């Protein structure tokens, strides 16, 4: 019967359609920086080997990551904006926040550096130079951790750059990579996390101009989504991944991840969550 | 006589107007004879429209047309309609005939023999597997008639069935029509061809500009036409507006 063959084809088709079905998995919503840099692709298999739990990574900005967590669409979130994280926990959306690792932000821009920021010592002065010279600056504008950080820096410098939006201040509303592509094309300055910057391949007209200043510290934390709001949250599996991340093994895995010989993330778990 | 159930065909004050134009103007007559009735007239006389009303494809605005006191509805299997330009399904010749049988819920067991018979009758047996749309004009018209004939209707209405055929095609179709008429099927057919009317008609309805000018037996019509219009038409003259 030709119908039997048809049935077999249909069966194979639908079984392969949801390949991870039946396996235990958790959904981690992370920032684009950890995904674009390849960190999670690198360390998740190490965790899976031990625990037999797969981690599905959805990469979005910090703002949307928190929204997804709030709606119960993720089991845990890996984000990098302390003030938002604390609010997320205090509102009861998340529990057991643990700091996992850090890297830092850098300011990149055209090699000619028309705003002369490369000789500044303080981040805020560098930004003031850009502001005063009205040099093109590309902002994420997407409510991500990097965007929030950038807005904080402007505020700390006492500058309102957003009023020049569309003039020399450009809001892309896009991910870090897309924003770097745009900065590259425009010959503009932008704030990037170092991980994305180092692993970013299309930087023919961009160079690193400013780095190594305490305000540029970039702390990543993991937060479990509160199972009281969402009973379907796989809290045990999620917790075991969180515990692994802050364990010696997990921290070592983060430290071992390099891109072109450079370490992108620096583990700094404080052993227990706060 | 088996025509008893469908005849007479009666037109009563039959009128149709479209967009303010009178297309059929108060037709009154009765067709009682078996044989072949030809609706004759120049282009624009209203022949096709009259035929379509006889199959229920169009409705009159006034008066009525009835087959033995029944107003026709399309799809009654005792009556079949043959269009001048047939539309065939994009299937084989065989499947096109099968489709009609299926529409009329003829049991599968009879289907094949009915189709074979219809194909045989119309000389299409060799072409059963061919796609209907690739047939020549003459073959298409034969299939058209086979499709109408397959349900053995008591009445077959044909709208200028040979208008687009070459002389040999015309002869074949006319032979087919004669054969069908001899099997006790009432034929009503439109044509603008005098020769065809002469060859086939037993009675003639002569139409001009929506009016029924004459309705007589074919012999009388051609030997002693009553009206000037009919005389002129038979003489091959252009008909003026009267």
């Amino acid at each position, binding site marked *: 019967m030709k119908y039997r063959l048809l049935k077999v084809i249909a069966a194979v088709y639908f079984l*392969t359609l949801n390949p991870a079905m039946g396996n235990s998995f958790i959904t981690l919503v992370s920032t684009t920086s950890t995904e674009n840099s390849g960190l999670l692709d690198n360390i998740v298999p190490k965790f899976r080997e031990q625990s037999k739990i797969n981690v599905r990574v959805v990469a979005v900005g910090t703002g949307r990551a928190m929204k997804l967590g709030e709606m119960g669409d993720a089991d845990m979130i890996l984000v990098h904006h302390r003030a938002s994280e604390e609010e997320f926990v205090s509102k009861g959306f998340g529990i057991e926040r643990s700091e996992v690792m850090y890297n830092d932000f850098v300011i990149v821009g055209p090699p000619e550096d028309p705003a002369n920021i490369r000789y500044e010592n303080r981040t805020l002065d560098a930004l003031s130079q850009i502001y005063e010279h009205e040099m093109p600056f590309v902002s994420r504008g997407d409510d991500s951790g990097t965007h929030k950080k950038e807005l904080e820096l402007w505020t700390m410098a006492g500058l309102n750059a957003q009023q020049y939006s569309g003039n020399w201040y450009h809001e892309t509303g896009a991910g870090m990579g897309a924003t770097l*592509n745009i900065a590259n094309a425009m010959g503009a300055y932008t704030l990037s996390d170092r991980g994305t910057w180092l692993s970013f391949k299309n*930087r023919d007209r961009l160079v690193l101009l400013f780095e190594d200043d305490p305000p540029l510290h970039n702390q990543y934390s993991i937060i479990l989504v509160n199972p009281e709001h*969402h009973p379907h949250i796989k809290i045990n599996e999620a917790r075991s991944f969180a515990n692994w991340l802050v364990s010696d093994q997990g921290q070592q895995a983060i430290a071992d991840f390099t891109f072109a010989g450079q370490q992108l993330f620096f583990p700094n778990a404080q052993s227990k969550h706060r | 006589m088996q025509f008893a159930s469908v005849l007479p065909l009666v037109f009563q004050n039959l009128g149709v107007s479209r967009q303010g134009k009178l297309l059929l103007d108060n037709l009154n007559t009765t067709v009682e004879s078996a044989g072949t009735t030809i609706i004759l007239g120049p282009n624009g006389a209203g022949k096709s429209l009259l035929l379509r009303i006889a199959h229920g494809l169009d409705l009159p605005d006034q008066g009525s047309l009835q087959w033995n006191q029944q107003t026709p509805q399309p799809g009654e299997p005792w009556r079949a309609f043959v269009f001048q330009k047939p539309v065939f399904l994009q299937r084989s010749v065989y499947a096109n005939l099968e489709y009609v049988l299926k529409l009329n819920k003829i049991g599968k067991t009879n289907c094949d023999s009915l189709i074979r018979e219809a194909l045989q009758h119309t000389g299409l047996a060799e072409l059963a597997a061919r796609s209907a749309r690739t047939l020549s004009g003459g073959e298409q018209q034969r299939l058209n008639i086979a499709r109408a004939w397959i349900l053995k209707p008591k009445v077959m209405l044909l709208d200028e069935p040979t208008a687009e055929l070459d002389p040999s095609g015309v002869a074949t179709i006319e032979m087919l029509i004669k054969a069908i008429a001899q099997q006790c099927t009432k034929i009503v057919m439109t044509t603008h061809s005098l020769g065809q009317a002469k060859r086939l008609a037993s009675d003639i309805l002569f139409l001009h500009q929506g009016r029924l000018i004459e309705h007589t037996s074919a012999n009388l019509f051609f030997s002693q036409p009553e009206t000037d219009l009919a005389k002129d038409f038979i003489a091959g003259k252009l008909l003026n507006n009267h």
Partner: protein
Amino acid sequence: MNDFSQAFSKAIWLIIQLDGDLIEIVTLSLQVSLTAVLIASMIGLPLGAALALYRFFGRGLLVAMLNTFMGLPPVVVGLVVYLILSRSGPLGMLGLLFTPTAMIIAQVCLIAPIVAALTRQTILDANDEYHEQLKALGAKPSGLMITLLWETRYSLVTNMFAGFGRAIAEVGAVLIVGGNINHSTRVMTTAIALETSRGDIELALALGIILIMLSLTVTSVVMGARHAAYKIYN
């Protein structure tokens, strides 16, 4: 131009070495979009035909909606499907978000209106041609739909693949409801978006070239089959 030739040779290289990740992504792309086309056709073909042939309450509104929905931005579709499938949404308990099934649902919403609207036009045209003849033969209005759908099957395949083209090429909807999860919901378009954001323009372009080749292959296979079938009947 150098970028293009490099991307092109990279695309060829990825194909000939049967890159495992690539095969996985291509397979999922095809599965999602072909399934979406099948389901969208099961909805769109009868719906389009019914809108062409029958008069019923709300028909005009439905036609207007279909024509509008033909041009729906995928992102909007993605967002709406996300809100429905989210754990906090009405169908959240199904747990479908970030699965291929969710991507299929989004693509069905995206292309069912296209298939329906195109089918409506195809059937309208066919009805002009066939209606008198079929009516004279005694076809009932209910049977007309099946007959006309079958008669126009070659055109309808083209309509379906207009839908397929849109499904396989869109990124907005599948990104939102699928999440671009590696080894799980990553398809050609979301992979291209990811590689672009990683700044790997060459790889992104190579994937783009492969996507076009894939689309071309599927379309040629279907059109070839259509042509062969057409030849048998005509």
